[in-house]
């Protein structure tokens, strides 16, 4: 009864007083203890979790009305600043940083009575799609290929957030998505991962990677749970100048699963001979389901699709190179002692940042530097306009866009890497939504021949998360994906 809980199920158990929040929390804490092989958690905040669970139990025994998240054990990507809990961004440079403040997103969950089990491993400063760039070591995907014991990547950057939910070490989690960092790992682990419209969720208190692209969002076992979490974390925040003024919506209560008369676009630019056959197969199956359930499929064109990835790898590093300048050993975090200020900066940053972060800082510095700014940075921002315009045009005619989430399934951690660009290609289907600021979701569809999860992606127009969730629910209810990884780690 205490395993494989969803938010909905947990809430029902608690309000019906079938179990206590403390029992549920203790069960998860035990499972986390037994999961060291997966390396999902950087910090387990067991005392705070037990405290919060007891508070929920007190409210229940006082017959207070409890919300859907009250007493539900969650865990957060270690990019969200949490008051009094170590927050590292998976980087050595923040390996001793304990915030005195709580991010807006996690504060919203806390206010709803959520229990925080701890902080989840991720790629360093969210830069990566494998979770291998973490200072705390890679996260291991709970899924394995049939008959092959090789460790696989969980995807990234929110690798810990995906693996922890897939391995049922928490009910659901929060991640961040700058170029696919929620959707790609969700797809690699058979979960639902949602990136909201840019501006829907406050970025205050979340360690920044690329400010114009970053959005926090849920990774969950069901579309319903994604709706609950989205509803909780979104809303205007006057501490974030890029936070939308739109009224918050009741995504969960308004959830339905009708796709009748909706027009779903299928972009021809996403079709490629390079796409693995099994991904193609599930994509086709999805199209079939949508048609059968009453939607109309429309072939659409997003002509600038192939420019999104190079534009992203200019914009994101440019913003990151500047965002990461604050890590200089003066105010907090790591300091390597040196005799001069400049040597102190250089040693601190060289020792504090890992290779991928250094690469991106260097590229970002390059594209912003004098003589290259127009050719790269401005060019990429113009490409962003073109991409956004492509989507604007398409959304005049369709309600949603349906594509694969990733060009591949989970791959071995020890895969030989020829050069960094190879990994950048993992984001090929996810990046356009970030550049255009659109909401997008990855939903599990099935397993490939090796038994690894495959996810599909839906994208809707800005602030159309309700429709995104509704179509997702339709697909979820039809497909009924219920596979789970075989537990090998405990």
């Amino acid at each position, binding site marked *: 009864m205490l395993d494989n809980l969803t938010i909905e199920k947990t809430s029902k158990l608690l309000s019906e007083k079938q179990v206590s929040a403390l029992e549920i929390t203790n069960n998860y804490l035990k499972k986390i203890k037994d999961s060291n092989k997966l390396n999902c958690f950087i910090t387990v905040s067991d005392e705070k979790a037990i405290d919060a669970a007891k508070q929920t139990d007190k409210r229940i025994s006082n017959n207070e009305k409890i919300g859907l998240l009250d007493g539900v054990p969650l865990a957060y990507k270690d990019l969200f*600043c949490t008051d009094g809990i170590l927050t590292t961004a998976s980087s050595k440079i923040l390996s001793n940083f304990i915030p005195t403040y709580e991010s807006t997103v996690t504060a919203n969950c806390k206010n709803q009575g959520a229990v925080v089990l701890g902080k989840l491993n991720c790629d360093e400063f969210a830069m990566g799609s494998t979770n291998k760039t973490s200072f705390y070591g890679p996260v291991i995907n709970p899924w394995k290929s049939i008959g092959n014991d090789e460790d696989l990547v969980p995807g990234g950057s929110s690798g810990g957030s995906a693996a922890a939910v897939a391995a049922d070490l928490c009910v659901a989690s929060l991640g961040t998505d700058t170029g696919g960092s929620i959707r790609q790992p969700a797809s690699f682990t058979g979960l639902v991962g949602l990136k909201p419209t840019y501006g829907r969720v406050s970025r205050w*208190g979340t360690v*920044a990677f690329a400010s114009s692209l970053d959005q926090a969002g849920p990774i969950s076992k069901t579309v319903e749970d994604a709706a609950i979490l989205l509803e909780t974390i979104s809303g205007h925040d006057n501490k974030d*100048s890029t936070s939308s003024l739109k009224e918050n919506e009741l995504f969960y209560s308004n959830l339905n699963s009708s796709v009748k008369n909706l027009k779903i676009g299928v972009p021809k630019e996403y079709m490629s001979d390079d796409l693995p056959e099994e991904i193609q197969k599930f994509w086709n199956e999805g199209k079939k389901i949508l048609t059968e359930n009453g939607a109309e499929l429309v072939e659409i064109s997003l002509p600038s699709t192939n420019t999104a990835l190079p534009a992203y790898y200019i914009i994101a590093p440019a913003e990151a190179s500047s965002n990461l300048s*604050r890590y200089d050993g*003066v105010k907090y975090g790591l300091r390597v002692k040196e005799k001069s200020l400049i040597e102190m900066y250089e040693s601190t940053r060289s020792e504090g940042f890992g290779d991928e972060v250094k690469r991106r800082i260097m590229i970002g510095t390059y594209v912003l530097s004098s003589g290259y700014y127009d050719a790269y940075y401005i060019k990429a921002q113009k490409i962003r306009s073109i991409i956004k315009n492509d989507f604007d045009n398409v959304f005049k005619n369709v309600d949603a866009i349906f594509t694969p989430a990733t060009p591949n399934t989970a791959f071995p951690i020890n895969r030989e890497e020829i050069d960094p660009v190879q990994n950048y290609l993992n984001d090929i289907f996810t990046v356009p939504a970030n550049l255009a600021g659109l909401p997008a979701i990855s939903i599990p569809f099935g397993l490939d021949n090796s038994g690894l999860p495959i996810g599909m992606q839906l994208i809707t127009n800005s602030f159309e998360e309700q429709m995104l969730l509704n179509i997702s629910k339709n697909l979820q209810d039809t497909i009924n994906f219920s596979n789970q990884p075989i537990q090998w780690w405990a």
Partner: protein
Amino acid sequence: MNNNWQTVIGIEIHAQVNSNSKLFSSSSTEFGSAPNTQVSLVDAAMPGMLPVINKFCIEQAVKSGLGLNAKINKISIFDRKNYFYQDLPQGYQISQFKDPIVGEGSIEIDIEGTKKVIGIERLHLEQDAGKSLHDQDPKLTFVDLNRSGIALMEIVSKPDMSSPEEAVAYIRKVRTILRYLDTCDGNMEQGSLRADINISVRKEGDELGTRCEIKNLNSFKHINAAINFEVDRQIKIIEGGEKIKQETRLYDVVADKTRSMRSKEDAHDYRYFPDPDLLPLKLDQDWIDKLKKDLPELPDEKKARFIELYKISEYDAEVLTSDRLTSRYFEDVATNRNAKLAVSWVASELFAILNKLNLSIEKSPVNSKQLGELIDEIESGVISNRAAKEVFEEMCESDKSVKDIINDKGLVQISDTSEIEKFIDQVLIDNPDNVQKYKEGKTKLLGFFIGEVMKATKGKANPGLLNQIVKKKLDN
């Protein structure tokens, strides 16, 4: 030596915006608090912190732009200027690069009656840095972030000035305008207003020379001295057959010299780009129009009005309008009174005492109402101008009313004709020789008689009446 040499000067003024809180955070801007007690999570650049702009600072920048007769840009963009420094916690300064809030404008300066228009290139908003203390420890630099994030207006002039006098007049004028608008307190000692001076020299008719920038000057005396030194230095170099290196220089107050800080080769590559944490700032024309309508009277207008209304000299008007509070003080005193008397009392007597006590006008020991009362006594003939000075001195030191001081000191003027005649008659009787000489044509002796009467009356005789009666008696 400076024959045929022309100096070209452009100035960047950094003026701290008068506001309660910082440009992108709610921390207080108060001066002189304990170190690092006015620093928010945002100012300290803690992970995940984001800037939210202060509406009032925008208003202040727009008002300043309007005061500088400049174009207000309805869309402006905040950029990041990237560089590492111990007092720059973010590793970048939020500033405005390509699209500033205020565009081109101009102001007029006046040097001993000669007017010149100086162009304004732009005004933009940016964050101030923190403060470094280098003298607290032999091996360490201390950093106080209280100032970090306070709003600054950077006002960039065109290279329209050609002498230290013009440079100083320009900065003074900008400072006066900002103080009139209450957008900057102009306090140079506290660093609320500082200037970077760009200087180059050329032979008449030649193209612009290579310029050097002297950073961070915060007194008129230093600005004047630094420009003089720098111009001589540059001319000497060129006349010695060498070239000027483009560089940033510092003025060393003690040595009265400028010295190199960094050359162009070490110049930073600031990698400006639009701050992705902020959206473009859009201003509404109606809002701008309203600010424009509500602008206070500015120094040039006020000066013109003073000349017209009070019939005072251009010089006096300039002096009296150089500061908003001074002009208000003067107007309080001059309204419904003899303007000439008001000018002389404010510009001479009051300024002299303020200078002596090193006080600003708002701390004046005599307020405008009291000075007005004193002038009333002069105008109505109760006391002489000379006696008034004695009263004024007493007013500076005590809280006694004008009337009490006059009574206590017995300074009431004798304006009764018959009484004055009595004194005159006595003097004429006592000095028959001089009366004789006067009648023989030595009319210069008139002063002697007046002096004697004044002596006899202890200065209390109404000078106008006295003069009139003495003359009449002697000429009879």
